[in-house]
């Protein structure tokens, strides 16, 4: 069991290398960012500690994706959780952090329990923890066992990835860590769970029934929608981003699940293509979510609050941060020609190609999934209009935002690197895809030498589709050209001059920040439209001076956290109730205790034959 040290414990196949790349792409800018970010937030010793933990965190993630033994994987997996727990509770004064850390570590530990169970079952069959030994043994594994192992892995890794309804920890834990850590957690750490699913389910276990893919797709779609709808309701900017991680994990899993689906139907080209889409979105999400968290951290550092209702007008105070946030927001909203657009297009295209290649009801199923993905991206765009608009545009809504200043250099550099990467990954899609094809081919064990995914270095084109193309560089070029043309028209044909004046106020004499649209107001249509799921409720409180005169009036609107209220809370209550009632067996009476011994003895003697 532990005799692995005699062998090489590392595995650097394309899949591992890809994930290593993702880890370092996000970690490096975060590290740069952290220099100035931590300064002044914490005492020097704690900063040292933070950097050590950061290092340990990145190292453990890197090791998670590059070992070839389940047991070592497990050790580093838990180490990663442990270090990230310390980072979540880094702000030890804050009770919220402690709670978030608790929820996080408990959920992730429960997930690990499932993973352990899966490993153990695999070990039973393979008598080894080595990946390749297990892979070989899996070919002879009965499909019933495979199904169980798959479900265990899905729950185990799903907890870490934050798929609904196991996402409960994510919106608590990610916002509480220091921002550069949030960016790594959200950008990279939850991706290790995707690595787990790809590595263990697709690479080692091998997909053998089509319902696996279907299940993953359904869960992914639910994650997408739930994540984005909750994000729309959220006013804490980091928590909003955390919910978007749930959504984007859903999108990534759409690619992965689609790939599983196609493998079971023996559509190898589409399987590779979908996995490419998933992996592409994975790296994209890592980059733009990393960037967005860093920007959110900058905003927090500059203003001292994460509540976007208190922000506003930051684009003038912090122009660079605003620009980076805008790029990130555009990328996550899948706007061309940035990277999020490419991967979402690929995912949608995978659905469409799948729909035209499968038969019967599956077509409609894939179509509906695609439609839900489209809905998700629409809602995500709305959410980021809200996030960017309320945070950065218009007037400052409180003193927090009024006194903001642009953040220090190293923070800006960190953000800049990621912003540039967003553009690069958007424009160089064809090149990226060639690399990803190798990764996904090797992960699926499919020969990709005869497959092509792009026309040339600028244009994507799935081989099996009839003349379907996407060329982001050209698109970007034309966007710029037409933009310039528009500008020229504006200059040449427009004769009038520009006047800067107050916003139209309907004759109301003084428009101030209290007249601005708030984030709550912005999300109201969505709250109403999705009220069947969000279950909003209002709290109104009137403070009266007398019966006729109301001195002040407060009004709050909340949404019900459905999963927490109807799944987790009842379970917790039940567990605690059971535990409490169990506690009654020990009321302090020594006679009773002696009685227990006696009764146990009698019972054992009576039922001795049973043992």
């Amino acid at each position, binding site marked *: 069991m532990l005799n692995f040290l005699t062998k090489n414990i590392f595995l650097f196949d394309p899949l591992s290398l890809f994930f290593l790349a993702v880890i370092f792409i996000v970690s490096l800018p975060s590290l740069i960012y952290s220099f100035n970010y931590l300064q002044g937030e914490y005492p020097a010793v704690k900063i040292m500690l933070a950097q050590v933990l950061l290092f340990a965190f990145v190292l453990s993630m890197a090791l998670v994706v590059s070992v070839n033994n389940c047991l070592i994987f497990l050790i580093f997996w838990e180490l990663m959780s442990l270090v990230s727990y310390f980072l979540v509770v880094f702000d030890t004064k804050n009770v919220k952090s402690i709670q978030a850390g608790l929820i996080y570590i408990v959920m992730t530990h429960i997930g690990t329990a499932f993973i352990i169970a899966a490993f153990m079952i695999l070990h039973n069959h393979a008598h080894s923890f080595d990946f390749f030994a297990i892979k070989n043994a899996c070919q002879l594994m009965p499909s019933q066992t495979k199904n169980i192992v798959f479900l265990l892995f899905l729950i185990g890794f799903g907890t870490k990835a934050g798929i609904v309804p196991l996402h409960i920890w994510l919106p608590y834990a990610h916002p509480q860590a220091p921002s550069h850590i949030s960016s790594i957690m959200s950008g990279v750490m939850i991706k290790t769970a995707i690595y787990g699913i790809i590595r263990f389910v697709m690479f080692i276990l091998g997909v053998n029934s089509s319902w696996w893919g279907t299940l993953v797709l359904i869960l992914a779609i639910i994650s997408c929608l739930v994540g984005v709808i909750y994000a729309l309701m959220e006013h804490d900017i980091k928590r909003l981003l955390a919910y978007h991680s749930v959504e984007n994990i859903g999108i990534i899993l759409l690619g992965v699940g689609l790939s599983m689906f196609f493998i079971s139907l023996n559509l190898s080209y589409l399987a590779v293509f979908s996995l490419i889409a998933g992996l592409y979105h994975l790296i994209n999400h890592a980059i733009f979510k990393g960037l967005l968290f860093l920007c959110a951290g900058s905003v927090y550092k500059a203003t001292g609050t994460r509540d976007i209702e208190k922000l506003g007008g930051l684009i003038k105070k912090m122009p660079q941060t605003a620009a980076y946030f805008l790029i990130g927001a555009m990328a996550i909203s899948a706007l061309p020609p940035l990277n999020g657009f490419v991967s979402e297009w690929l995912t949608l295209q995978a659905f469409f190609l799948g729909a035209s290649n499968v038969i019967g009801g599956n077509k409609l199923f894939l179509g509906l999934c695609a439609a839900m993905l489209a809905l998700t991206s629409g809602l995500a765009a709305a959410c980021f209009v809200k996030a960017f608009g309320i945070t950065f545009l218009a007037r400052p809504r409180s003193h927090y935002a009024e006194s903001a200043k642009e953040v220090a250099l190293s923070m800006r550099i960190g953000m800049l690197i990621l912003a540039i990467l967003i553009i690069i990954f958007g424009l160089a899609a064809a090149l990226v895809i060639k690399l990803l094809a190798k990764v996904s081919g090797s992960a699926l064990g499919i020969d990709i030498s005869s497959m092509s995914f792009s026309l040339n270095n600028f244009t994507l084109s799935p081989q099996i589709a009839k003349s379907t193309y996407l060329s982001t560089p050209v698109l970007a070029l034309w966007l710029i050209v037409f933009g310039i043309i528009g500008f020229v028209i504006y200059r040449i044909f427009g004769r009038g001059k520009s006047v800067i004046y107050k916003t139209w106020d309907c004759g109301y004499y003084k428009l101030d920040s209290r007249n601005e649209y708030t984030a709550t107001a912005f999300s109201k249509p969505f709250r109403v439209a999705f009220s069947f799921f969000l279950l909003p409720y209002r709290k109104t409180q009137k403070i009266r001076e007398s019966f006729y005169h109301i001195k002040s009036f407060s009004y709050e609107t909340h949404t019900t956290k459905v999963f927490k209220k109807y799944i987790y809370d009842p379970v917790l209550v039940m567990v605690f109730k059971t535990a409490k009632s169990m*506690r*009654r067996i*020990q*009321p*302090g*009476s*020594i*006679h009773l205790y*002696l*009685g227990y011994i*006696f009764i146990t003895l009698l019972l054992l*003697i009576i039922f001795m034959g049973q043992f």
Partner: protein
Amino acid sequence: MQGIILFVLLASTYLMVIAKRTPALIRSFRYQSLCLFGVTFILALTQREPRLYIIAGLLFVLKVSLIPYLLYRIIRRIRVSEDLGLFINPQLSLLWALAFTYLSWIFATYLVSANNAILIGTLAIAFFVVSAGMFLMVFRMTALAQIIGLLVMENGLFLLASTVSGGMPFFVEIAIFFDVFVSVLIMGFFVYRINKLFTHIDVNKLLRLKG
């Protein structure tokens, strides 16, 4: 002869089960120990082994004289009510005791092959004494009753040991005697303390530590 002594032993155990006051309990315990001494002494006479004489002597010194004396002393010193504090009244206790006797007999027959009636009887009595001791510990409230219950169980074990396997190895036997004596001393010490701190020795009222 042995049969009579065993019967007396059984009777004294029944007396303990129905006892309502501590002195009565100690007295019955003394009878029981005396019977035990008788059994051992007869065994020593028949087997002519010097170690059995020593054990019988120790039994007499410790269980018949010293320990009951100590217990009486405790009663005198702490001056609390002599009531044992019954969870179950004597009548019902007697019923329980009868049930235990029956169960012990069944258990003894299960353990030993059927042709050895004396052995079965002795075993049954031994098991019954153990269970009676347990009964006292569970259903009597005071700390002293629990000490005595423990001693009764120990007596039962002694009977068991001397019947089924002809007693333990000698030095083990001595060690056990020593151990029992020390434990009575220590328990007595704690009874004093309980009395001092709580002004009673009803251990069913020691309910500070829960769950």
